[in-house]
């Protein structure tokens, strides 16, 4: 099987990407005709939505941690999700006394989060509310980033923290700060060891792929729903590939 993959690997990879693209486009444009998909309930997103409202009510701040994964890295996906959540939160909390605050451990991500905030406020017609220091880079290596974000959680009237990006073990420092300051933590990461830490230390951990569904669950648009549906279909493609490949191998072909 793997020889096959290797031999036609490149084209197969391109095929897979094109399949994914095609599915997303199909679901994206056929979304109007078809009934909307039912998404399984993910408690973390339910609480995340409620926390946004509660924070606005209580005049508190939302802290969105975008992690330290540069968009130039493999973990960029998680960072992009973090930006989506930042956009949604900024919209929801646009009338709050304390606008949401974003922290990042990477230069590009910091600028992107500033852009996200600015364009969100612009689209809401409240650009004067935009303050570049609401999107901060708190440190350049993992522990420095976490250590720099801790005072924000402690001092900035944060009612809820969303850790949605590429983070590592250091995320435990952030969840600990969140617990000590009495703020809720909803957290997800693409890295498995961070997820393991979050499973024990976070109020609402997001496991694995769940983080990437944030856009769909927070109403970021039909494209996000469409990509979820395509993921659900590609899931079966992968399962089929694994099972068929295993059977073929077991029967001793392709060796």
């Amino acid at each position, binding site marked *: 099987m793997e020889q096959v993959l290797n031999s036609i690997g*490149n084209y197969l*990879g391109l095929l*897979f*990407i094109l399949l*994914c*693209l095609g599915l*997303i486009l199909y679901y*994206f444009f056929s979304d109007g005709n078809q009934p909307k998909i039912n998404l399984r309930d993910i408690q973390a997103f339910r609480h995340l939505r409620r926390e946004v409202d509660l924070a606005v009510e209580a005049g508190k701040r939302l802290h969105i941690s975008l992690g330290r994964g*540069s*968009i*130039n890295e*493999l973990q960029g*996906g998680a960072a*992009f*999700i973090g*930006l*989506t959540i930042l956009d949604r939160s900024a919209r929801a909390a646009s009338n709050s006394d304390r606008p949401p605050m974003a922290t990042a451990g*990477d*230069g*590009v991500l*910091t*600028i*992107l989060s*500033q*852009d*996200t905030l*600015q*364009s969100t406020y612009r689209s809401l017609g409240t650009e004067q509310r935009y303050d*570049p*220091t609401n999107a*901060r*880079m*708190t*440190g*350049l290596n993992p*522990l420095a980033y976490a*250590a720099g974000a801790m*005072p924000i959680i402690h*001092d900035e009237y944060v009612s809820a923290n969303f850790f949605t990006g590429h983070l590592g*073990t250091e995320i*435990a*420092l952030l*969840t600990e700060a969140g617990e000590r300051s009495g703020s809720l933590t909803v957290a997800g990461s*693409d890295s*498995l060891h961070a997820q393991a*830490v979050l499973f*024990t*230390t976070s109020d609402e951990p997001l496991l*694995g*792929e769940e*983080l*990437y569904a944030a*856009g769909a669950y927070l109403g970021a648009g039909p*494209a*996000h729903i469409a990509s*979820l549906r395509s*993921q659900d279909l*590609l*899931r079966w493609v*992968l399962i089929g590939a694994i099972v068929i490949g295993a059977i073929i191998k077991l029967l001793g072909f392709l060796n």
Partner: protein
Amino acid sequence: MKKILPTSNAIIAVISGLLVLLGYFFPGVFGNIQSVLIGWAIILAAFALLLGIYNLALVHWKKAGAGGTNGINSIVLLVSLGITIIAASLSGPTGSLSVWIFNNFQVPVEISLLAVLAVVLVYAAARLLTRRPKWSTILFLVTVLIVLLGSVPLFFLGEVAPLVALRGWVTQVPAVAGGRGLLLGVALGTVATGIRILMGVDRPYGG
């Protein structure tokens, strides 16, 4: 103009992304373009990192102006930032002065932060069952205990062979299975996210 700008940004993102992507699958044709674009992106990432450090300094400059204990912390941060920059510039990143600062300021604090995490993690694990009384939590804790007990000869009991064997099996069979599933799931999500950007639907660049 207001309409054109975002669209043009999206077009830039899509085209540059497609060129790099095609470079992966058709190295012959697009390989050179890809490597050039990647080279640009690397340099740009460096510029972005400088912007990030400027942002860091700006934030703490404002805080320092505000005064209070946080102001003091910010001043300390700015001072150590400035001193490090000067010292490392004079002696070079691998100069003896840079290495001395690194060894005696950065290393102790980093290891100590991790050491603090040890207590944080064991504390969280100890109260996890109260926090989330579910079957999955129990399974989680059992796994943790098995791996811990199997990873080292116990001080009073010595090496417990069955535990070591069990740990080996758990880490090599079920954990590998779950890990693969998680990795594949994350990869699926990543691909979908990337494609949304290349479609120009997601525009984190504020388009």
